[in-house]
């Protein structure tokens, strides 16, 4: 999903770089309020883990691979503010050190994976969590749903950028159906990895999981009334 240089023209790339910068500033402020001694190291670890798992491309269909994006995973583990920052660090590393994702496209990539993927995936997680019973396994299931949907959401982000500023002239609707179709398949892999990872952390240190903590603390507040 890493956009190379050249697909999207420079003015469009600049607009999305500005939008991403705004989202990063907002997330810095949010993370500063939320992170404490216990959650800050987990946020760092989340970035490291996502970098590692993004290297593991899995086959999805004939001649196509996909890899974890990690937006929903990070949002469930450490909250959406820190998640946007973690994904941004990963994308900067990949772009500058490993020549993965164009340097002029970093704003586009941060917008799709670090903003849309994180906040879209987190919104789906919250919706699904609401309808499931309030127990630990629901957190993994809701995280999987967030992961599943976050990938086509990020793919639609690319299609919007393509519609605004593609250097090529192929039809937007063809790009839309191909991108969404392929990325729903990749989303299944995303859902599996997200559920397994959230499940492992829930089993060992559920007290660290943002998407579980903020539900249990709400319940405590209600119980106190």
């Amino acid at each position, binding site marked *: 999903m890493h956009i190379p240089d050249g697909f999207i023209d420079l003015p469009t790339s600049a607009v999305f770089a500005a939008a991403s910068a705004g989202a990063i500033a907002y997330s810095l402020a949010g993370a500063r*309020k939320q992170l404490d001694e216990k959650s800050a190291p987990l946020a*760092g670890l989340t970035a*490291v883990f996502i970098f*590692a*798992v993004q290297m593991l491309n899995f086959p999805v269909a004939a001649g196509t691979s996909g890899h974890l994006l990690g937006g929903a995973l990070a949002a469930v583990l450490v909250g959406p503010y820190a998640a946007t920052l973690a994904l941004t*660090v990963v994308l900067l590393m990949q772009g500058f050190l490993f*020549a*993965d994702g164009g340097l002029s496209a970093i704003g586009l990539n941060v917008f799709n994976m670090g903003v849309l993927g994180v906040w879209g995936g987190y919104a789906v997680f919250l919706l699904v969590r609401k309808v499931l019973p309030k127990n630990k396994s629901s957190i993994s299931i809701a995280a999987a749903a967030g992961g599943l949907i976050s990938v086509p959401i990020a793919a639609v982000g690319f299609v919007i950028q393509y519609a605004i500023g593609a250097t090529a002239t*192929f039809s937007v609707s063809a790009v839309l159906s*191909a991108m969404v179709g392929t990325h729903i398949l990749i989303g299944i892999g995303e859902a599996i990895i997200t559920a397994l990872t959230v499940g492992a952390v829930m089993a060992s240190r559920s007290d660290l999981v943002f998407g579980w903590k903020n539900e249990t603390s709400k319940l405590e507040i209600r119980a106190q009334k």
Partner: protein
Amino acid sequence: MISNRKFIVMGVLVSALLAGGASFYASSHPDGLEKVAGDIGFLETAKDHTNSGSALADYGVKGIENERLSVGVAGLIGVVATGAISGGLFLLLRRKNPKN
């Protein structure tokens, strides 16, 4: 319950094993976006990466012939570099004296 420190160390070790070992077995097929770009026809609008000649371009270490070693070392460097930057960032951002 395992301690914070143990949990983070285990997580970093798992990440190092994945990036340093398992990455060799990753699929080398084009990813979703690249495949779509090729099928529809806009793949050729991609430009070479500014850093395509750099020492770690495409997750390999320049000069290491053995592919398994090359991607493995690149992955480990990525784990360390990502950990240094994100660890530093999040430690700077955290609330140091939470009011209880």
